[in-house]
């Protein structure tokens, strides 16, 4: 208790770290307490969300001061500890800001879609955010792993929310793939790391430098990248399309913000703070995985083009875009890594917009297939305008945030003298044009197949999705501010 | 070797005969008889360890010089009692098994259980079908 008080009163605000994890937990408790009063329940959720966003954003000025907060010692030599560093703060900010937005949207969506058991939904939603905070702030691999698994479990009921046979099947694939990879590959990788380095802390230069030969490091790196199933590298991406059975806000949260971003965040964290970019570059341990990432990037994009189901197309688009970040990480170059980190943010904002739009279309117009969207843009101008903006951002064209992240990644691969990744990155963007643009184009330019019997989606849904679309544009102008704390850590030129 | 060890070997042989009966025979009562034989072999082995040539029972009297060792005897007294207690419990179980299944052959008991389980599964399937149909 004394420690806690000291931490609160200390000038460097280390207590904000556990507070960031505790707030969503409190939200979860509040939702359960208020489970019979729907308005109060959701208001509490949003309020806690705003508070969390406030707490996390307030940490930006102290991002590089190395705040630490030790919870307790879990096993001898293995403390559970939080630490603040720019990458984690980036992830935490994305999750914390998008949570209240999604909550508002979810309240509208779930009512419109007449989903059951809203209390369970919001409770586990908050729990997911808590685990995201935990992951973002972890100071070592063990702490991170605990949050990582918690997130899988917390999202399980969300994916299976419908409760019908299809949802059960999807949720089963989701849980089995994620738990199997993490227990089967990630856990041994972490233990191995511990055995090699005698610590699992995240350190700026990595902890594995000089601890093992390049063969071992290559194997270990592969274990990590496949073990982090949430990063959806082929062939462990199967859970992502399977989880599309979830309600749209869940898809938005899962596949744009919390889960997949937790995956790529972990990948970045492992590359930068466990292996160390220099070590990776010198040993070439990451090279084989560059190829896997490149393959995933292209293959997933092609599947996305061939999918008619809107959510499925978005899901494969996610797989492809995640591969961008993994690819950037495997290049083991500072600029590329910064681009990856930025892409984590821009893709999150862009993709959540797309999913929110898809949900709005599904409940308002009842359409889930790309081929059915002809002419819908006239009935739902706001929704599709947002969709268009987000598409542009994902593709990586100005004036959206995606421009910078893709630019940095391209720059990074060029500086690292890697030609093939450069080509792949460019090709991926072209493919993104092919799978995203037709949607908005059809909606605005094609004549409608029949007279629409509905108008725009309700405000609680259009509001959030407009907000996130604006976010895409805002990132174009604010990218520097986002990257600033990171620049110091990664020693960007 | 033979002269000094044949007694042990016979005891071991008795154990093995008992062990074979326990493992191979399916009749529950025969198993218990086998178990007793097995244990008696072990008891004899223990007592043999305490025996001393030319010794006598370890009851101290003035006109005896050498005694056999009392400790193995004490151990085996305990072990015999444990053995008969186990036998009694085993027999009681055998009686109840006979009342429940009408047999004391292990194979037949297992067979009856498995047919019961199959029947139950069939019933369940049938019930599921009815539920789906209506």
């Amino acid at each position: 208790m004394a420690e806690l008080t000291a931490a609160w009163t200390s000038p460097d605000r280390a207590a904000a770290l556990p507070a960031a994890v505790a707030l969503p937990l409190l939200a979860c408790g509040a939702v359960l307490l208020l489970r019979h009063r729907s308005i109060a329940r959701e208001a509490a959720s949003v309020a806690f969300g705003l508070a969390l966003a406030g707490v996390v954003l307030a940490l930006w000025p102290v991002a590089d001061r190395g705040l630490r907060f030790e919870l307790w010692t879990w096993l001898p030599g293995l403390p559970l500890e939080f630490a603040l560093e720019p990458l984690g703060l980036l992830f935490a900010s994305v999750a914390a800001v998008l949570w209240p937005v999604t909550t508002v949207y979810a309240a509208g969506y779930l009512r419109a879609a007449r989903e059951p058991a809203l209390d369970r939904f919001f409770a586990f939603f908050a729990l997911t955010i808590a685990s995201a905070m935990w992951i973002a702030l972890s100071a070592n691999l063990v702490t991170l792993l605990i949050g990582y698994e918690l997130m899988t479990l917390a999202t399980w009921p969300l994916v299976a929310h419908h409760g019908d046979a299809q949802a059960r099947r999807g949720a089963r694939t989701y849980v089995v793939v994620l738990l199997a990879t993490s227990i089967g590959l990630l856990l041994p990788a972490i233990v191995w790391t511990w055995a090699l380095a005698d610590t699992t802390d995240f350190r700026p230069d990595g902890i594995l430098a000089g601890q093992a030969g390049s063969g071992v490091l290559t194997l270990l790196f592969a274990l990590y990248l496949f073990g982090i199933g949430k990063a959806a590298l082929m062939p462990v991406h199967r859970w992502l399309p399977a989880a599309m059975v979830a309600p749209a806000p869940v898809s938005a949260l899962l596949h744009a913000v919390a889960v997949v971003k937790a995956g790529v965040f972990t990948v970045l964290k492992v590359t930068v703070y466990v292996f160390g970019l220099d070590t990776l570059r010198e040993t070439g341990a990451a090279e084989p995985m560059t190829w896997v990432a490149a393959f995933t990037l292209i293959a997933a994009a092609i599947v996305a083009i061939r999918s008619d189901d809107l959510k499925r197309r978005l899901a494969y688009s996610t797989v492809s875009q995640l591969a961008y970040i993994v690819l950037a990480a495997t290049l083991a170059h500072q600029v590329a890594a910064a681009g990856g980190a930025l892409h984590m943010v821009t893709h999150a904002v862009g993709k959540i917009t797309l999913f929110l739009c898809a949900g709005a279309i599904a409940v308002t117009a009842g359409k889930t297939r790309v081929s059915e969207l002809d002419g819908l843009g006239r009935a739902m101008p706001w929704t599709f305008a947002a969709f268009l903006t987000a598409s542009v951002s994902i593709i990586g064209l100005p004036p959206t945030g995606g421009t910078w992240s893709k630019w940095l990644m391209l720059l990074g691969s060029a500086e690292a003298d890697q030609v093939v990744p450069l080509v792949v990155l460019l090709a991926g963007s072209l493919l993104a044009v092919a799978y995203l643009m037709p949607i908005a184009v059809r909606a605005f330019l094609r004549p409608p197949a029949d007279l629409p019997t509905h108008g725009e989606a309700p405000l609680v849904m259009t509001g959030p999705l407009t907000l996130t679309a604006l976010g895409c544009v805002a990132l174009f102008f604010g990218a520097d501010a986002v990257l600033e704390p990171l620049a110091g850590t990664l020693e960007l030129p | 070797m033979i002269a000094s060890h044949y007694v042990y070997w016979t005891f071991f042989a008795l154990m093995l005969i008992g062990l074979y009966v326990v493992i191979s025979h399916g009749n529950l009562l025969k198993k218990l008889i086998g178990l007793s034989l097995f244990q008696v072999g072990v008891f004899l082995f223990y007592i043999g360890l305490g025996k001393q040539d030319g010794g006598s029972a370890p009851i101290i009297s003035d006109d005896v010089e050498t005694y056999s060792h009392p400790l193995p005897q004490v151990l085996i007294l305990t072990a015999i009692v444990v053995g008969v207690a186990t036998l009694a419990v085993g027999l009681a179980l055998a009686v109840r098994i006979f009342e429940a299944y009408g047999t004391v052959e292990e194979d037949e008991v297992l067979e009856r259980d498995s047919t019961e389980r199959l029947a139950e599964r069939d019933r369940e399937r049938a019930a599921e079908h009815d539920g789906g149909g209506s």
Partner: protein
Amino acid sequence: MTTTFTLINVSLLAILTATAVTITRLRALYEATMLAALFSLVTACLFVLLDAVDVAFTEAAVGVGISTVLLLGVLALTRSSESVTPRRRRLPGAIAVLLVGGTLGYASLDLPEFGSADSPVQRHPVTEVYLHQSQEDIGIPNTVTSVLASYRGLDTLGELVVVFTAGLAVLSLLGPLARPERTRPTADFHLADYRVIRVVSGALMPFILLFALYVLFHGDYGPGGGFQAGVIFASGFVLYGLVFGLDRAQRVVPRAALWLLVSLGLLLYIGLGVTTMLLGGSFLDYDVLASDPDTGQHLGILVVETAIGITVASVMTTIFFGFAGRGVAR
């Protein structure tokens, strides 16, 4: 090793092995049971030959007496012939026998010579303590009794607990609490209808009980002790039950009394331990029972033997009543 000893020894061992082999091959279980009794009897003789008179006494009482009675009782309730052992069952047994036999044979290569006075067992300092020091510490000629009841009193307590547990098991499985649907038809006649049996067994009863008491209290000086005495007591009741019928036997020793006695013996033993603790000694340290350690040891051992006798007799009787009270199922 004297020739006579060897001769007797070899022939007894031969009989034992032959009996054991025959038992395995017999499918008629009555016959197998009788042979098992014979086996125990021969074993008891062998025990005497190996200087283990107390063990021999117990083996005779248990193997020939209690075990046989129980087995016969069960056979009366169930089928009495074994079905043919199928071929597939033989293999696991054969493998186990080979493995165990191999290990035992291997072990015997380094076992001390049989009957050697120089084996580790004989050389260990406990031998001296148990055989000679005990005369001063405890002062009882039968060292088996002093080791049993005092040096290793905890083992004996454990043994009594096992007996007690067996009593509980039989009570819960076969006792009045688990009555079968079929109740036992009242027998048309009792063995008591035969005058000779009635008179003889009636006349024997006091002698059996007297003998039991003698065995109980003579354990300090010769073979015998609580356990053997308990079994003899129980066999007295068994005889009574067989001759005069279960109902009359139960009138003599009511169930409630048996329940009481079963627990009482064990309580007495543990209570003795607790008493010694309360008097400032260790658990089962009889020295503190009286001002003179010798007297204390005598007193302690007497209480122990009595406790064993009470529990064993009542448990064995309970077990017999349990089996005998079961309906005739065939």
